[in-house]
């Protein structure tokens, strides 16, 4: 699976971070404690940021840390705190027929892995690709992709107003 001839350090780094991410993701969906799930999600998101650095995407990695680990996780912990006062293990976090999810997820994973193996057998990523600078990203956002940026601004505005309207107590 790994490219053995070049860049051993990057491959080892990828493998370690990927293993940590997969373990964290499994703990997110299996733990019995909502706060623990949020903290394991932090592990997965930080690992994703590290993978973005490996993929030469420094601006996206920093945005990931600031938006996800900084803002979204605080939102999640607030949501947990406001809906469940109890800190500790809970029993009824899963559906009654939770076992249906297992074959679905395994079948989906098998299909995807077979398709990926067929499609991109041993295709290598470029080893000496230059790091994508913030300037290039901003040139894209405010140039070719300006219209989606505007649409996204309206989405964020609508989401902020909607969240306030929904959560207001009156």
């Amino acid at each position: 699976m790994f490219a053995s001839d070049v860049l051993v350090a990057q491959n080892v780094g990828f493998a370690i971070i990927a293993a940590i991410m997969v373990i964290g993701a499994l703990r997110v969906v299996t733990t019995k404690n909502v706060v623990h799930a949020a903290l394991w999600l932090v592990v997965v998101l930080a690992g994703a940021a590290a993978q973005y650095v490996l993929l030469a995407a420094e601006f996206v990695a920093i945005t990931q840390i600031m938006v996800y680990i900084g803002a979204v996780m605080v939102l999640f912990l607030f949501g947990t705190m406001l809906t469940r006062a109890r800190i500790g293990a809970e029993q009824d976090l899963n559906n009654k027929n939770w076992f249906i999810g297992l074959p679905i997820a395994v079948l989906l994973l098998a299909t995807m892995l077979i398709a990926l193996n067929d499609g991109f057998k041993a295709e290598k990523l470029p080893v000496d690709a230059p790091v994508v600078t913030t300037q290039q990203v901003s040139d894209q956002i405010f140039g070719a992709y300006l219209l989606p940026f505007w649409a996204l601004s309206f989405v964020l505005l609508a989401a902020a107003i909607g969240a306030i309207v929904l959560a207001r107590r009156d």
Partner: protein
Amino acid sequence: MLLNEFLMLGAVLFCIGVYGVIVRKNAVLVLMSIELILNSVNINLLAFSLRNNSVDGHTFALYVIAVAAAEVGVGLAMVLLMYRNRRSVGLDELSEMKG
């Protein structure tokens, strides 16, 4: 590095997220599983961006992050509203639309 390493990591995270969405009853945990799915998509976008030597994937990854933040905000507001009305965040109790 192989392209497939990243794509397979994305696939594994995606499937774990799908499993969480199906299995979990607590609404907050379902939102966390959706975050897992969105992150796996971002890994794929950036891997293909590096492979094709373009910046488009980075732009879309940033847009996905912004949409995910908006989604979490509205989603948690809805969860709070549900908790205020029903004293519970179990998704199986929202069964009023069943005839």
